[in-house]
């Protein structure tokens, strides 16, 4: 009988399984990771943090990691068996980006994992490649942006056509930085002080966002659902940039608001909060599952002036024709602005998908424009930095529909100063502001 091996630690087994699902089977990283953390709730907080860090880091740096592996392995990454490829990738991440874990421990755990997954014969290969990387760890520098910032070439080329090179590079850097979770406080429910106190009692590190007084940045928390402030509906996960869309909407008491693609409801809840119990916000989205997310949030927060409905935004609903004071159109987009948080976006995007998104956005905007009352507003927003979906889409809209741009000056607080605010739109760029990449354009329908 051949020699068996020591069992690898459970957290590394979990990391391997989660990464296989994401990198080899194309699962969404935040979904798969969340499922795993829910399943293994009994793990220590430190283990859970370790799992999250290694999974997110490995995905984020995948292109850089693969370039390093290709330099140090006789078998190219593309030709490796998926399990071996995944073990090597997660180990390289730990060796190069997690200083507190001894390199020898990473190598040993990788070998244990290799054997435990029935690839006994490959333990020498895994060990050899990793030890080579450990020896050369200070010598890996890449001059090209794709391998240095782990970003597909075509995206870099696309952005270079849309932005100055220095802006592109600072975005690439910003995507790789650690990003705290931003939550918006429902001031209707509790004061900022009450909320901060509650969070700090539970060991969360809290800072007030420099961009918005009602937003908090949370770090070092274990499990969001376990926080009292979350359970009581005092806080809502939402980047400040997305909170801006509701600020821009700036509703008055009694307004009728239609959010055409609103799940999970962050902006609508914010608007309902701003309406202080008056008026009505209707949130729509395509599927039951998405609407259920809104309902979960609604139940937790208890707003009575908010309703959630399943409705395909591409389909015109005569019941709302020229009825809305405000239409919120936060539309499906490439998501490039949140690559820092959901790194798999950069690998799953393609030029074809971008074209389809542009068409879909136009289709939805065409329908949404008809819901706006004369004199009412339409707020278009995306969480991307792609000009085709943003500035170009705005120009297209102004050209084809009876709307004019509605100035954003003074609506976004003092820390955002962009010349375009006056013209009714703003592109927030990661690296320039401490928030997601986000685009907002406000339009007002002609009164006659």
């Amino acid at each position, binding site marked *: *009988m*051949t*020699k*068996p091996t020591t069992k690898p630690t459970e957290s590394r087994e979990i990391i391997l399984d989660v990464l296989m699902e994401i990198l080899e089977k194309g699962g969404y990283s935040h979904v798969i990771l969340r499922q795993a953390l829910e399943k293994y709730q009994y793990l220590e907080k430190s283990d859970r943090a370790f799992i999250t860090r290694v999974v997110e880091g490995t995905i984020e740096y995948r292109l850089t990691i693969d370039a390093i592996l290709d330099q140090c392995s006789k078998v190219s990454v593309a030709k*490796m068996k998926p399990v071996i490829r995944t073990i090597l990738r997660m180990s390289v991440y730990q060796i190069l980006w997690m200083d507190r874990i001894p390199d020898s421990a990473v190598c040993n755990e990788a070998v244990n994992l290799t054997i435990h997954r*029935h*690839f*006994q*014969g490959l333990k020498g290969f895994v060990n050899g490649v990793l030890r080579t990387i450990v020896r050369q760890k200070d010598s890996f520098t890449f001059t090209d942006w794709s391998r240095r910032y782990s970003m597909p070439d075509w995206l870099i080329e696309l952005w270079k056509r849309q932005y100055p090179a220095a802006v592109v590079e600072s975005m690439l850097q910003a995507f790789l930085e650690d990003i705290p979770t931003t939550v918006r406080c429902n001031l209707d429910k509790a004061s900022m002080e009450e909320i901060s106190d509650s969070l700090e009692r539970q060991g969360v590190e809290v800072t007030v966002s420099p961009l918005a007084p009602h937003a908090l940045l949370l770090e070092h928390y274990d499990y969001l659902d376990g926080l009292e402030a979350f359970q009581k509906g005092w806080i809502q996960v939402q980047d400040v940039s997305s909170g801006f869309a509701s600020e821009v909407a700036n509703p008055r008491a009694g307004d009728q608001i239609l959010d055409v693609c609103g799940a999970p409801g962050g902006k609508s809840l914010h608007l309902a909060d701003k309406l202080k119990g008056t008026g009505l916000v209707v949130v729509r989205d395509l599927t039951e599952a998405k609407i259920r997310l809104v309902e979960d949030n609604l139940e937790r927060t208890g707003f009575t002036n908010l309703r959630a409905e399943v409705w395909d935004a591409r389909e015109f609903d005569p019941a709302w024709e020229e009825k809305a004071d405000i239409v919120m159109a936060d539309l499906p987009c490439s998501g490039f602005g949140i690559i820092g948080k959901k790194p798999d976006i950069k690998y799953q995007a393609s030029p074809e998908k971008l074209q389809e998104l542009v068409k879909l956005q136009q289709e939805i905007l065409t329908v949404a424009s008809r819901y706006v009352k004369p004199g009412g507003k339409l707020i278009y927003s995306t969480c991307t930095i792609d000009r085709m979906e943003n500035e170009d889409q705005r120009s297209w809209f102004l050209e084809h529909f009876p709307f004019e741009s509605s100035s954003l000056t003074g609506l976004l607080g003092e820390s955002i100063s962009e010349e375009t605010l006056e013209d009714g739109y703003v592109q927030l760029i990661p690296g320039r502001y401490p928030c997601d990449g986000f685009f907002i354009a406000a339009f007002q329908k002609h009164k006659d």
Partner: protein
Amino acid sequence: MAIRQVRTIGDDILTKECKRVKEITPRVQELIEDMFETMYETNGVGLAAPQVGVLKQIVVMDVDDGNQYVLINPEIIETSGSQTGPEGCLSVPGKSGTVTRPNHVKVRAFDENMEEYELEGEELLARCICHECAHLHGQLFVDLVEGDLMDVNAEEEE
């Protein structure tokens, strides 16, 4: 002392019933020594005589517990519990599979001086006893594998 050639799956000898050992001859002593050497050289924890082409009921084992065990004419007399885990065999190179075995095994056998003794093992030793004794009756672990036999080449097969 010599390293002997390990027979691999497909070789008929691995499917045959082995004969009981009647006495310790110099040839048998040499066989036992060679079996240990072959086992260590190939990074094994256990080896049965048919694996080196000899149809005798002899097993050698070293599971890193500080002992070298020799089992001659072994009979498993008690088993209990269960363990499920990866297992590999020197006669099935480059493959591994999940096998369920008893977690506790008691075996009666003769040692290299032909003195009868009983050996009790848990976990790895229990697994090894079962795996090696099965060789003496022409059985390989591959028939017990749950799921797929996994193979271990560096490149993905096309």
